[in-house]
């Protein structure tokens, strides 16, 4: 009955898939450069170039939100639009008939999104240091990990979009979410400075909760309890993951 037994999966599929995906994204500077430079440019403009009464502490304080902002672009566009394009080109079909586990594809794209995010974060952190931000090594490390992990909920949301929408539709929706999450989540202007109705809407975005957790890491004032923000982010991530998985299962191509 050897004909009916399946051999075990070879080791290293996930690692090779991730390395290949990162290599692919590095070969697309037209995607990599704008997504990595835009958050740094925004940070420089809003935090450093425009005069602000709270300076110099302001340079460090706004890092919390802009780091989350740096993660939304690569995750929403790399996944949402990227996956939709790959689906239309038949690249996903190629993967789906192969023995590659679905998880390896998601992790590989996540690795690529995090690589792009890491470039963007490095630029923002460097600008902050130049502007006088001084944090302990432990705080830098905690914040960097949180900012990189911020990719995950946006990536899963984008993945669900990519499996359902056309490339054009996904780009449009990713743009709308990118702006909505940034403004309502308080990534550009801290949430507490926004009008009340925007703060109310912001509570429904993962970006708001991630930014609040990042503020806690920086020992800044937080709206509400950090634990509640953490639980909310985890729940939102799980919901996005379920939505993405259902999209992968039901999509015929």
């Amino acid at each position, binding site marked *: 009955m050897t*004909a*009916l*037994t*399946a*051999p*075990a*999966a*070879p080791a*290293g*599929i996930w690692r*090779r*898939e991730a390395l*290949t995906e990162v*290599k*692919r994204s590095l*070969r*697309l500077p037209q995607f990599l450069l704008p997504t990595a430079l835009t958050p740094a440019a925004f940070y420089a403009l809003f935090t450093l170039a425009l005069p602000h009464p709270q300076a110099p502490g302001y340079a460090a304080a706004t890092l919390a939100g802009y780091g989350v902002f740096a993660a939304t672009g690569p995750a929403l566009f790399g996944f949402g639009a990227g996956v939709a394009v*790959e689906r239309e*080109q*038949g*690249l996903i*079909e*190629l993967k*789906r*008939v*192969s*023995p*590659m*586990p*679905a998880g390896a594809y998601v992790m590989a794209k996540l690795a690529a999104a995090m690589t792009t995010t890491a470039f963007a974060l490095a630029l923002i952190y460097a600008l902050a240091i130049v502007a006088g931000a001084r944090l302990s090594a432990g705080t830098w490390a905690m914040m960097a990990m949180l900012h990189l992990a911020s990719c995950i909920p946006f990536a899963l949301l984008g993945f669900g979009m990519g499996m359902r929408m056309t490339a054009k539709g996904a780009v449009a929706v990713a743009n709308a979410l990118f702006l909505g999450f940034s403004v309502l989540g308080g990534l550009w202007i801290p949430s507490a400075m926004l009008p009340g109705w925007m703060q109310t809407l912001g509570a429904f975005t993962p970006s708001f909760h991630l930014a609040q957790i990042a503020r806690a890491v920086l020992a800044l004032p937080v709206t509400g309890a950090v634990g509640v923000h953490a639980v909310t982010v985890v729940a939102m991530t799980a919901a996005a993951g379920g939505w993405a998985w259902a999209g992968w299962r039901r999509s*015929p*191509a």
Partner: protein
Amino acid sequence: MMDDLAAVARLSMVTKRLGGRVVLDGLDLAIRAGEVTALLGPNGAGKTTSVALLTGRLAPDAGTACLFGLDPRRPAARRRLGVMLQSAGLPDVLTLRELVTVHAGYYPDPRPIEETLALAGLTDLADRRCGQLSGGQARRVQYALAICGRADLLVLDEPTAAMDCGAARALWATVRALADDGAAVLLTSHDLAEADSLADRVLVMDAGRIVADDTPAALRARAGGSVIRCRSTLPPKAAALLPAVREAGMEGADLRLVSADAAATVRALLDADGRLEALRIVDATLEDAIAALLAPTEERIAA
């Protein structure tokens, strides 16, 4: 029950609806090791859907799809499956060697990369990026991806579409060699000459069911042996009554008859029309055989 033991993949009593239309209707289909099986039929017969079910992209509404004893949607079942799709794209910025290497890595006992590239005739292009390949070259890359894992079942969907004659012949030779080594091959094709020369077994599909399952030679024989063409004043309705005629119709300006006994038919034909011209007789091809199989259904739909 020889069938059951040798089958590497099967669809049992499968029904599938897509967009409100019944595409597969209680379909039974088994693919056996060491055989090249051609799946033929008109557009919309359900070939693509059958392939999608066997490769795990779709699940049946009723019945079961089975690949090496497992659900094809499980990656474990696909570790012995190699697929060449018609519609699949290639990642533009990867080189061909990088792509084949990462794909081969999905399989437990892959073929050495250089051997895969040589079999697909791609050795000289290995360091080219996929985005720089011609249509025919991209098809060969798809073929390389199908064979790189040394799979026990190869599913080839229109493998030689967009390939030139030389590349197509080279591909046929390697497919034949892989089947002779024990691989099962499932082939869909619009090129009936390709199916005839390559397949050990032909499955003809129509309206979501298998309407014939036989060797190409047996199917040709079933079609009645010979196709007679001539210029004649005799109308097809009258010609249909001649001895041994199975089918009569017009093909352009020609009268076309399918005959079980060409000599008897031609003798009567010459007697019936003294001014007959341009008489030609050829063996029935696989195309004729399949046309004969499908004809009754078309009439039924038209009626």
